[in-house]
């Protein structure tokens, strides 16, 4: 049997299948491109050929698009990213004390104590230092994002870049380029600035103790890893499936939930070919004016969410049950 985890993030949609030993049997990394429904369907098309829907013993969703993903695939568990990441990290290593997670548009720190989350923080208003920003800078410098880290390692010194704000960081980088610094030194400076920004903003007031796991898409960037190690003074670890950790966590949580219930709500891979659409409208029922999202599948409605009063059958109570699972 397999356990499916789906992490619909702002930049990427990750699907992962775990086997009975919680080892990754299949993983798919797709760009969300602002269309989570299509991303999920694309992922399912790839999975459909190799696996059968009846092989799936449980399905879980996480990420900012977890609600929509859950109503489309019929998830057993809907979990926030923080718990999902912590669950996945603990599955790999019981001794982990700190998780640094930097994804497409948000970055988090999770502090664990004796295997339970004791504190966490997420970036609030600023996206400096997240994947999207690095992506953009790589594009601007005309360096493939995969090579970004290698460039940073080549540099002997680092150029100081103002990292507090993405806009200022960019103009500072341009300024340093105009002054004639070499590209790899600038990239290393950028990594250092982002790490500084992370430690001063998100990790402010939190003690980072080893063992530290570095996960999320940005962990692919070896320059960032090195910069973190330099700043913290000890080694940090990047797990093998660093960019799938959210999905892995969702799958593990789904396994636990479905084992408790004894069945799965998973709707099968066939929905890859169905015509799924979402529409949103402003409910006029009262002055709250909730923005309600309605999901259609082949002309029938499979779910609503976003309403507060429950008039449209908001599945908030359902997620509440999952929460206590």
């Amino acid at each position: 049997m397999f356990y499916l985890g789906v992490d619909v993030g702002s930049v990427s949609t990750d699907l992962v299948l775990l086997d009975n030993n919680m080892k990754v049997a299949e993983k798919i990394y797709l760009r969300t491109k602002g269309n989570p429904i299509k991303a999920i369907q694309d992922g399912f098309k790839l999975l459909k050929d190799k696996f059968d829907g009846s092989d799936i013993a449980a399905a879980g969703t996480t990420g900012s698009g977890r609600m929509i993903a859950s109503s489309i695939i019929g998830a057993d568990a809907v979990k926030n990213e923080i718990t999902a990441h912590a669950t996945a990290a603990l599955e790999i290593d019981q001794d982990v004390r700190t998780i640094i997670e930097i994804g497409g548009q948000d970055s988090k720190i999770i502090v664990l104590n004796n295997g339970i989350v004791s504190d966490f923080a997420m970036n609030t208003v600023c996206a400096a230092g997240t994947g999207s920003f690095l992506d953009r800078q790589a594009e601007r410098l005309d360096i493939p994002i995969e090579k970004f880290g290698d460039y940073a390692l080549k540099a002997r010194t680092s150029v100081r870049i103002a990292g507090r704000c993405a806009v200022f960081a960019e103009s500072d980088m341009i300024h340093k380029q105009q002054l004639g610094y070499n590209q790899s030194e600038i990239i290393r400076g950028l990594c250092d600035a982002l790490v500084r920004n992370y430690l001063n903003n998100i990790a402010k007031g939190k003690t980072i103790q080893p063992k530290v796991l570095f996960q999320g898409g940005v962990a692919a960037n070896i320059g960032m890893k090195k910069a973190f190690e330099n700043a913290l003074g000890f080694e940090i670890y990047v797990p093998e499936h660093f960019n799938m950790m959210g999905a892995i966590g969702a799958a593990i949580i789904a396994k636990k939930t479905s084992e408790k219930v004894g069945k799965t709500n998973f709707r099968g891979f066939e929905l890859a070919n169905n015509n799924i659409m979402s529409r949103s409208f402003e409910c006029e029922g009262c002055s709250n004016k909730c923005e309600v999202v309605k999901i259609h599948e082949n002309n029938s409605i499979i779910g609503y969410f976003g309403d507060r009063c429950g008039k449209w059958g908001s599945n908030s109570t359902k997620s509440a049950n999952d929460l206590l699972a």
Partner: protein
Amino acid sequence: MKATFPHMGNVYLAVKALLDGLGIDYVIPPKNNKTALDIGSLHSPEEICLPYKIMIGNYVQAVEQGADTIIFVGSCGPCRLGEYCELQINLMKKLGYNLNFIVIDYPKDIGIKELFKRINEISGVSNKKAHEKLNALLNAIQVINLIDKIEEMAHMYAGYERNKGECKSLLNKCKNEAMQSKTPIEMIKILKNYQQKLKYISIDINKNPITIAIIGEIYTVIEPYSNFYIEEKLMDYGISSRRGLSPSWWVRNAALSPLKINSYKIRKNAKKYLSIPIGGHAVECIGEAVTASNEGFDGAIQIFPMGCMPEIVSKSILPTISKDLDFPVMSLVVDDMTGEAGYITRIEAFIDLLERRREDVLSRC
């Protein structure tokens, strides 16, 4: 005169009762919603705190319905709220509205004579007799006490209810019905009726729900729109919550403050960490965090608008309390730019954290 006033939680019910009792014509602005915030954000300075923006939205929407007089509370306290009335009077004038502002303030700041003069501006319009006016005021105070009590009960019982969602639906029904009432007496009757109903809902006292204290800046904790209906969300999750700051608390606190016997417990508990008032409700925030920990709550959530000075100070004190008392506290900053998705993620993760902590403690003993 057609009076109006900004929203703050359930205050509109009390003001409705008061103005109904005085026989003064009034407009209640539409409940806070996106339109109000959009209007407010458009006209307000970008850096001003969230309550200001929502209030401007309230005024404009009320004026559209014919209001010409705005009743508002001011304060000369060291927080931006003290500047609200002056700035808003200016802003509304600039926008071309010809409005009369009546700002109610502490007598120690404006003098008792001035206070009576201002109150008279409102009550002078009423043609009721003096004892009827007094009666209207007492009724309004009773309304705010009742609705706050009802809310408190609903939030606390939500963790224990047998029929999921009963507390939430009763609370919403109660507010809707009270809003439809014609006289203060009728409203009080409705509220008392719902208080009884809540008392007798089916609860399971063997349940041991997660309990969370809501602390922070007074407007954003009381006004549900500004905090993305956090209390309703907690009710949905089956969590019992308690919020110390409420309009009725404010009335009591203001009435008792000249005698310096207000909120004794809060001040006593806050003393170790924050011994002097620094404006806003920072002392209350700190004191309530300590109180909640002493009373066995699982955790606390602090909410404040972006740029709120007193709460920024308390936010930096909270980690110390958290460490000293082994009591998890999470801070949430709200703003017109806040994304709801990240906000909910944080709340859910915090609840997970509290649950796991509890399981861990249980498994160790």
